């Protein structure tokens, strides 16, 4: 199948470094991977094309790049999953990290964030004679998150990192969960308190980009949600993030539906009254425009609220 690979090129050593797109037309088998195609380009059409790859089997995590707008491992992305008729395939370097040349990105900021979460076990007692013991259940629970190959794909497509480079990011937070949930680690509270800080676990928007693109099924956002649940369970110092989740749940328990004004007032509280005051112009404009709840400003509980409350009680009892 005659296919075009449209590759974003960039070479800082060139007088005109780019970036710019360059088209490579080549014959590809539908079962080829995008990486096969890029290697063919380098070997037969343009040996100046820079890319990073190694195992070609989705193990080493070297060939992360954006393919048709989403980050993926080039070795795991089959041409046939992108086109049946030779449509152009667009290949770009990963996002949210500096580009060194063409498709090669600088992973240094990625590793810096991984090391920020101290990705090693911190037992409190001296090492046991022999091995550390952990139950099979606890290790099975961690198997998913331990599948992470540090490819950076989740970081590339993270919507928060796009606007705020200080966010610790999905890969590092998933790695943090791996240690928070490890029964051999004894720094859980300290870890959660650190992650509770600005740019930590509460800054994730829950956009699910990382879940969608992760090539190993790690589900970084699910791990971030699990960190938040652990944080609430461990009663880490309250933040707007933790209060938002607590208050939201409490409102559903008492009304069955959301009461937006109540959520804002109780989330910010007196401590962040300034944030509430900042909302006044928007609220005034909404009222002026008639953008007010259909049933009036007081959100009454739904008629079946007793059912909802009994379910809350029963779930709590069971867990």
């Amino acid at each position, binding site marked *: 199948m005659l296919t075009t690979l449209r590759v974003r090129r960039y070479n800082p050593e060139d007088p005109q470094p780019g970036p710019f797109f360059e088209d490579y037309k080549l014959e590809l088998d539908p079962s080829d991977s995008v990486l096969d195609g890029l290697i063919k380009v380098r070997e037969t059409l343009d040996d100046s094309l820079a890319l990073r790859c190694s195992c070609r089997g989705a193990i080493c995590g070297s060939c992360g790049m954006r393919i048709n707008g989403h980050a993926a491992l080039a070795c795991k992305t089959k041409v046939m999953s992108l086109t049946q008729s030779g449509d152009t395939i667009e290949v770009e370097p990963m996002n949210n990290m500096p580009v060194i040349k063409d498709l090669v990105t600088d992973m240094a900021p990625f590793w810096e964030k991984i090391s920020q979460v101290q990705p090693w076990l911190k037992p409190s007692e001296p090492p046991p004679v022999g091995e550390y013991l952990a139950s099979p259940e606890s290790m099975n629970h961690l198997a998913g998150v331990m599948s992470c190959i540090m490819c950076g794909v989740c970081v590339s497509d993270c919507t928060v990192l796009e606007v705020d480079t200080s966010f610790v990011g999905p890969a590092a937070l998933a790695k943090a969960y791996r240690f928070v949930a490890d029964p051999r680690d004894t720094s859980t509270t300290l870890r959660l308190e650190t992650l509770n800080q600005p740019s930590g676990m*509460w800054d994730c928007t829950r956009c699910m980009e990382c879940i969608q693109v992760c090539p190993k099924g790690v589900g970084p956002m699910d791990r971030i949600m699990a960190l938040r649940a652990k944080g609430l369970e461990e009663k880490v110092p309250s933040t707007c993030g933790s209060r938002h989740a607590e208050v939201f749940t409490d409102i559903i328990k008492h009304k069955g539906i959301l009461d937006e004004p109540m959520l804002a007032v109780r989330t910010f509280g007196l401590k962040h009254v300034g944030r509430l005051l900042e909302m006044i112009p928007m609220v005034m404009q909404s009222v002026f425009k008639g953008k007010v709840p259909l049933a009036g400003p007081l959100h009454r509980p739904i008629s079946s609220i007793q059912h909802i409350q009994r379910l809350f009680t029963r779930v709590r009892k069971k867990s």
Partner: protein
Amino acid sequence: MKYAFFPGCVSKGACPELYQSVMQVYPKLGIALEEMTTASCTGAGVLQEKDEKLGDVLNARTFALAEQRGLPIMTICSTCQGVMSQANHRLTTQPEYLQGINAILQEEGLTYRGTTTIKHFLWILLEDVGEEALREKITKRLTGLRAAPFYGCYIQRPTEALGFEEHPDRGKALERIIEILGAEVVDFPGKTRCCGFPILTINKINSLSMVATHTQDAKSHGADIMVTPCPLCHLNLDGMQSQAASQQKTSINLPILHLPQLLGLAMGMKPKTLGLQRNLISPDLPLARIGMGP
């Protein structure tokens, strides 16, 4: 085409114009609705931060109520759709888990058998009403209006729970609707990204940066208006747009329409009937340009 209608909290709360506009358009599309007045909030992914199982119990209750009526559920909110789809995916792919949830529901006289389908109004337009029937309802094509789609995360990801494998066109449904209504699709990279609403109370600067990025990006690609199937995105993109513009020290002024508002205009309804005067960024100018005055 009859559905158990799940309006979601926001269409009854901070975005009453969404409820108003969907109430105007649905009867003319051959759709019948029974509103689920006793259903609870889906949890919106926030309650799930605290307790995912509790969220699944509440949603399983809603699914069981629809199952009792023998009706599929219709949503009008990307977030409600996504949270329900994810819950339903967990319940229908893990029989033992469903059994545990049913053990909790049974004391309320309910059992969920796993047969309820949940469909956003956007998907219903294309998959159930159908393109041909929809075209017949269009009396005033939106020719000359350049509309940028904005989906909302929960109706785009994760694709496995949203049935994209069975319905691959769902990923482009909004563009398809815009074309059917006679408007011009303005494609831009941010259309499937996050509007920033979930972190508005947590990190306002980042949240507003997202609003500014996407609205400015759509405008720079030539959009007159943006259309969204998600009222939470609407709250941020419309409600917080002027603050986002101030933060970036610029002006944006891009009207954001709810999907049924845009549809209603193409069905010949007056802007006021569709609650367009309630949108904080007025769409009067771009609508006047195509001969649709207030």
